[in-house]
């Protein structure tokens, strides 16, 4: 009877197993797999406003999502050929290592231990986040150093507490804390004026501020007190695939630098005399082919998704409820950290 039970389970599995998906033999490169499947499987988060979330129509949207679309456009020529796989903070690296997803684009920080251990390789930072500080606008404070002696709202035992301690300690400044466990109450306490400032990830602070009754009564200070370079990870050991994802991100950033947008890319491709633009758009040289793509890879990505500035503005920029400042995510030529390697 145990046999019967086993048999039952095996048959059930076999019948259900219609959907078993073979990602192909282990030796084949990911690029070939993606092309054969004609879809990019991208691991995202389902609830990070501005980075990856769902619109009312059930469409994926956000910075991380647009990177996936850009890669799909570069590799497959169509930004819509993405299958979004929801991952959690816990299973994201397993999903990547087991081949369930081709790219992990889920606001994941680039750290040494992750790059070294988890069967994953980092590509390039896509968004520089960091721990920031929000304070009441009527204080007229413009930098964290002016907050000497201020009262901070904190949740207990987090790395943000440690970072704040480091930052103030190094500068010989003092602060006091109000420690509250639950984040909703924490932000309520801040709004009610029980503390002068509150600290968390910049992106978290910005999205929380949009929920406040009067968002303009609070300012996000420009400095960050910890480093959180977020970007896409790919499975370890596939150099070609890693290059493709890295350079797709670079292509979108280069497009901003060269002032190529989704609007003008069509006409620029025909008539540009700038050799940098010609190389980016594939009318000069054969860079795409060397990646194993077609030469118009970057053109497709820019045309369908837009350049980095467009992606930023559309998802988290001043026109959106999140109202992020470009901050560290300005181009290097504007004093930011976005420094895409040249395409030539």
């Amino acid at each position, binding site marked *: 009877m145990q046999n*019967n039970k086993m048999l039952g389970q095996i048959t059930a599995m076999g*019948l259900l197993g219609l959907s078993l998906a073979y*990602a192909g033999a282990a030796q084949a490169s990911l690029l070939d797999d993606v092309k054969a499947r004609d879809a990019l499987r991208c691991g995202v988060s389902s609830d990070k406003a501005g980075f990856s979330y769902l619109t009312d129509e*059930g469409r994926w949207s956000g910075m991380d999502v647009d990177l996936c679309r850009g890669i799909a456009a570069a590799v497959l020529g169509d930004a819509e050929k993405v*299958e979004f796989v929801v991952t*959690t903070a816990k299973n994201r690296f397993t999903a990547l290592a087991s081949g369930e997803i081709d790219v992990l684009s889920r606001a994941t920080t680039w750290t040494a231990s992750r790059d070294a251990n988890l069967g994953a390789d980092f590509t390039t930072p896509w968004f520089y986040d960091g721990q920031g500080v929000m304070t009441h606008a009527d204080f007229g404070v413009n930098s964290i150093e002016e907050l000497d002696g201020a009262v901070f709202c904190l949740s207990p035992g987090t790395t943000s507490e440690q970072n704040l301690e480091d930052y103030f300690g190094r500068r010989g400044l003092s602060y006091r804390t109000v420690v509250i466990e639950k984040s909703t109450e924490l932000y309520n306490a801040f709004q009610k004026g029980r503390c002068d400032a509150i600290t968390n990830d910049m992106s978290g602070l910005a999205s929380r501020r949009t929920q406040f009754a009067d968002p303009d009564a609070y300012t996000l200070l420009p400095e960050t007190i910890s480093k959180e370079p977020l970007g896409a990870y790919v499975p370890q050991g596939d150099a070609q695939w890693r290059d493709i994802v890295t350079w797709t991100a670079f292509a979108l950033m280069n497009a901003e630098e060269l002032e190529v947008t989704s609007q003008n890319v069509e006409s620029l491709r025909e008539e540009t005399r700038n050799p940098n633009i010609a190389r980016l758009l594939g009318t000069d040289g054969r860079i795409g082919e060397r990646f194993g793509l077609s030469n118009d890879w970057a053109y497709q990505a820019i045309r369908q998704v837009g350049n980095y500035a467009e992606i930023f503005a559309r998802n988290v920029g001043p026109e959106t409820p999140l109202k992020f400042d470009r901050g560290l995510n300005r181009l290097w030529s504007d004093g930011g950290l976005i420094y895409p390697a040249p395409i030539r």
Partner: protein
Amino acid sequence: MSSSSTVSTPEQTHRPAQSPPRQGGVQRTRRWVKRHLFPTPFQSLLTLVTLALLAWFVPRALDWLILSATFSGDSQADCLGDGACWLPVTQRIELFVYGFYPDTQTWRVNIAFALSAAIFPLLYLKRIDRRWVLGYLVALPFVMWWLLKGGAGLAEVSSTKFAGILVTVFLGVIGMLFALPIGILLALGRRSSKPAIKLLSVLYIELVRSVPVITLLFMASLMIQLFFPEGFTIDILLRVLIVLIMFTAAYMAETIRGGLQGIPRGQYEAAKALGFSYWKTMGLIILPQVLRNTIPPLLTQFIGLFKETTLVVVVGVLDIVGIAMSTTSAPEWLGLEHEVYLFLAMFFFTICFALSRYARHLEKQLEKSRS
């Protein structure tokens, strides 16, 4: 009042069908109120306090939930009243129900929903041959799988398109129906006279029952993949479905074992005396009775499974709770957690309460047919 009652008594005897029942009703109500609400001064006080609380709470709740609430509009800016803002739910109702299922194919989801809902009246209707019902229950998970996932004539739909109530119903119904045969076999195995079979069944049942389902889900999400050769992946939806089936089967086995124990010994002996084999005894005599008797507890188990499907959100499957969480973090609906979570609560309450009343009703029917 006492005089009127004395007057009414003779009338009652004369014209029993007319006015007296009303007066009797008033009296009965009075008596009921006195006995249940105001028996002692302390109890009366409690009643009054409760009534006062209700009188304070219910109008406010109604006002917030319905009267001052906003039901139509496009964005949070349209929510001007003081009441609830139901727009994140109304604007996203398709996402909540169908997930990312292709618009042109949603009829398949509708049929699948209808087929699942049809199970419940089928259990009740006595005129229909039991074999038809059984056949329906056996075929349904396969039909649902085919309808929703596609293949054989229907366009294939990737599991990444599954989300919302669709996932909840898919996992709940298919999980339950696959767990049933496995649960029956496990229950029989546990009562088997062959030690190996008995031991294995007991081991399986006790092992699964003593592990929280969330642990098994994490196993499915994190570990199973690592055992397979690289590049070989099983759909995440299938993995969590298998976990839910295995888990429910173990619990179901215990329910069915209870039913088996309730069958008088004499029936087994009579079957043996007539020369019935083990499987014939079980299939023709014992199991039909057991299943009829265990329908109410099995329904209760289904309610449990239906609610447990929400745990899949921790491994990244977007069921209705996943969609709700995504909704509360979408920039345009930030700050409307209360409404969205209330909607979830109402969804689960409506379905689970209806099913539990239905299970109760079936139980009463059973009691009646026994006596």
